């Protein structure tokens, strides 16, 4: 029988380190996925996911069963880290743009960001043309998601990519249920509008 997250956290609070390892193994993939989709930066997504787990590890005693699901708690921490990361990146980018304007160097433009679509594993039924087309499409979708304003991007990723429930999303984003629903609907409409020129490809 699979142990619930809350039970594992309780075990970890009592000192069972293995329970924490189980939680990490259970949640690290969706967490990395969420962060990577949100920030558009795969390598950094791993760092941020690790930082999320470190924070959970350190603050484990503050977690109390029944108040919030472990998953919700984890996503709240990750969301806050993502927000900080995006803010810091904007500052870095602004600084970089300023420096580039002065020194006319543009070599390190987007080198930090890795194409998360390209690093995804290839399909087993490998067909170069289809795969290339699919890769381009995924890139386009990722770019379209990345262009959404933050307030719409979060709920869209949590709902359509992470598959969370409306209640969970409301808890993570600290929104009322009605607001969450309308934001998700609005985000989907915005995404549809952005993907309109590529509908032929889809």
């Amino acid at each position, binding site marked *: 029988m699979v142990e619930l997250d809350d039970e594992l956290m309780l075990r970890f609070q009592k000192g069972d380190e293995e329970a924490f390892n189980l939680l*990490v*193994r259970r949640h*690290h*993939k969706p967490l*990395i*996925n969420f962060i*990577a*989709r949100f920030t558009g930066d*795969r390598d950094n*997504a*791993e760092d941020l*996911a*690790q930082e999320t*787990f*470190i924070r959970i*590890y*350190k*603050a*484990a*005693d*503050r*977690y*109390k069963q029944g*108040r*919030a699901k472990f998953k919700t*708690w984890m996503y*709240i921490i990750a969301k806050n880290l993502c927000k900080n990361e995006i803010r810091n990146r904007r500052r870095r980018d602004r600084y970089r743009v300023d420096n580039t304007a002065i020194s006319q160097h543009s070599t390190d433009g987007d080198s930090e960001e890795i194409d*998360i*679509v390209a*690093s*995804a*594993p290839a399909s087993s039924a490998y067909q170069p043309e289809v795969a290339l087309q699919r890769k381009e*499409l*995924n890139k386009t*979708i*990722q770019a379209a*998601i990345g262009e959404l304003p933050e307030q719409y991007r979060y709920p*869209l990723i949590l709902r*359509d*990519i992470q*598959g969370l429930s409306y209640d969970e999303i409301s*808890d*993570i984003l*600290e929104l009322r249920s009605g607001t969450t*629903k*309308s934001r*998700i*609907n609005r985000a*989907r*409409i915005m*995404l*549809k509008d952005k*993907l*309109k020129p590529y*509908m032929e490809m*889809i």
Partner: protein
Amino acid sequence: MNCLEAVENFSAHYEDSLDYRSLKHFEEHMATCLECQREYDQFCLSIKVSQELPQIEPSPAFLTTLEHKLEGNERESLTIWDRISRLFNIPLINMPHSNIARRVFTGAALLLLVAATTTIVFRDNLFHQETQPDATVPVIPSEKAESPLIRGIGGLSQDIDINELFRLGMGSEFSSIGVSPLMQQNYTLKQVSYSSISTGGGL
């Protein structure tokens, strides 16, 4: 239902969460509006492709790197705040609005503290307050205020021993209010305040 309302219901229809009445109106509109039909098809398609985005596989070193990073960290012990909130089962720690809730609770706690302190201070004053001399009442010179009664009449609030009054020959005044000799032996009137202003016949 018009086009704008139909668009607002796209997600609800896609997730089969429209109630019967809304569903009926939605489908009636969709049956007649080609533009909304096209938009809805694209809407569904964009959701489908975003749901089909490939999962990002973590690097093989992810778990080992995390283990190494965790080695340098220790679990934080609970703060005083956390202990209090846990003790009283205050749902603040994992709540989404924890910061707001904490502020509200802290404010309420401070108000309670101030109220409790004020009550204690005033209660003490209530039972141990000494009546201040009335500025409108003339002060009797000290040589005339030697006896406890005169001192009382002078506006001071103090303990008056009935036995002392009887000894001074003023016990008859108290006999009229029914103080028996036995009681006179055992009781002491506390904090009786007299003033020179006429009480209309009473004490």
